[in-house]
């Protein structure tokens, strides 16, 4: 019966609210974003290409890509486990633990950065023992992964958690009564239910990881070709007032974020369609 769209004339405030929204989005988002396009047009194809295939830039893309991927993957594992424990089990301190999940969102990224660096440096509480085992974390790609894992943890937990909350335990009981093992129940019953949410969370975490700057620059050490991330490339080109090259590096990153957002939207649209049937 929902043919009728909300009719413009029924509820007041259309012109006012849309007018405000459009002007604000144009001023704060669209006009600034357009300047990137203008700037890259000034740069030209050749300049763009030369900047982007520069080995140091390429290396920074690789570092950002691989570290974000690793962090998102680690959080897929721990994120699902945390969501499961928080939804299904009752134990003392659960509420506090639940409340702490958002800490990475609430803590300024620079603070995260210096805290993790202090913690994982060779003299740090955790870095010290690890160094004795021959594992260096701070100033290596492992440090970048560590920072990104910290930053992107809430994305996975908070996308999977509501799905698990709505999943009736009756399905698991049914599986158990049919003789399925715990592992089998997880694989065949729970995992398919949470997969769309997990993929969405993975995409969000990955995208955030690619763009993250504050928490990473302190722990990364920023060695060219090794631990230099793409946002830092943009930053240092800007420091040298090399706006054209900064824009070129940024354009590639924008393309990557766009592809990730597209993938997330496709996953969500598919999942919605699947449930409706």
């Amino acid at each position, binding site marked *: 019966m929902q043919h009728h*769209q*909300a009719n*413009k004339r*029924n*509820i*007041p*405030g*259309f012109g006012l*609210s*849309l007018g*405000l*929204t459009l002007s604000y*989005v144009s001023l704060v*988002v669209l*006009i*600034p*974003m357009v*300047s990137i396009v*203008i*700037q890259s047009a000034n740069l030209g194809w050749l300049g763009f290409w030369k900047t982007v295939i520069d080995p140091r830039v390429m290396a920074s893309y690789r570092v950002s890509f691989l570290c974000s991927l690793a962090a998102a993957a680690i959080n897929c594992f721990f994120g699902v*486990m*945390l969501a499961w*424990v928080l939804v*299904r*089990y009752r134990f003392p301190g659960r509420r506090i*633990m639940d*409340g*702490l999940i958002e*800490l990475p969102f*609430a803590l*300024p*990224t*620079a*603070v*995260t950065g*210096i*805290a*993790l660096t*202090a*913690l994982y440096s060779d003299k740090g509480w*955790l870095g010290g023992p690890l160094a004795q085992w021959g594992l260096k974390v701070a100033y290596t790609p492992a440090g970048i992964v560590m920072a990104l*894992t*910290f930053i992107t*943890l809430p994305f996975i937990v908070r996308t999977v958690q509501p799905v698990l909350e709505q999943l009736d*335990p009756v399905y698991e009981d049914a599986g*158990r009564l049919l003789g399925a093992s715990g592992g089998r129940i997880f694989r065949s019953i729970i995992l398919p239910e949470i997969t769309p949410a997990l993929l969405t969370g993975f995409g969000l975490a990955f995208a955030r990881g690619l*763009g*993250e*700057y*504050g928490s990473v620059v302190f722990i990364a050490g920023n060695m060219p070709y090794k631990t230099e991330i793409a*946002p830092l490339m943009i*930053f240092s080109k*800007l420091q040298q*007032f090399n*706006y054209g090259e900064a824009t070129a590096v940024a354009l590639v*990153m*924008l393309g990557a*974020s*766009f592809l990730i*957002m597209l993938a997330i939207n496709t996953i969500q649209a598919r999942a919605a369609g699947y449930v409706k049937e």
Partner: protein
Amino acid sequence: MSTGNDRPLRLLLIIISVLFILLMLVTPLVVILVEAFRSGLEAYTKAVTDPYALKALKLTGLATVAAVVLNTAFGLAAAWAITRFSFRGKGLLTTFIDIPFAVSPIIAGLVFILTFGRLSYLHPFLAAHELKVVFATPGIILATVFVTLPFVAREIIPVLEARGTDEEQAAALMGAGFLTIFRRITFPHIRWALLYSVILCAARAMGEFGAVSVVSGHLRGKTNTLPLHVEILYNEYQFTAAFAVSSVLVAAAIFILVARNIVEFTARKESDYVR
């Protein structure tokens, strides 16, 4: 849930989870506090009450308030337009609103440099009127507003979407005007979501680093926010001072987390009651 034979597994999962949270999330907080007080209370007080620190605090406060006020007004208008009416290009508008979440903070800073900086078409005009945006307070505020733009809209839109427009239509049919409808019918529904999103928006505005770092030019005492001040202290090897200032931000973060949880708890209780 009470089959009993999964007890060992349950215990194992809880222990791993608790350890993970302690190791990943709690130890960094403890490190900050320990490092902040390493050189004693006096050094701590000195670092926190340093004039540059206080100036940075002021600028952070200003940027946060600006971001919250502007983005709340915008978020309400956008949510009203998007959920109460149908119009062409709605999907596109929603995508535009999401842009700040999708781009790196560094890119957010970059676009403002390009728009208002030396190379911009606006630059001659700005220079003629002695208006400084980049490397000045307006730039800091703009960058903060940009990165926190979607928070309120993104939180309110699903709430209004899920509820439909029946109540507003009924009220409009009885002759109620915009303000009456908003104040008496829509607002009570969204107040908790609104408060929640304001808290998140404030948290992000207060802690924003990348975008602000790009547009600030690191002018101490002029364009430094608290997170930038922390960076400068850290890079000058004044570790104790850096952690001391950080501890102030940690306190703010914890305050925000507690407030967020209280709001969520209250909203849940109320939703049981009015549904």
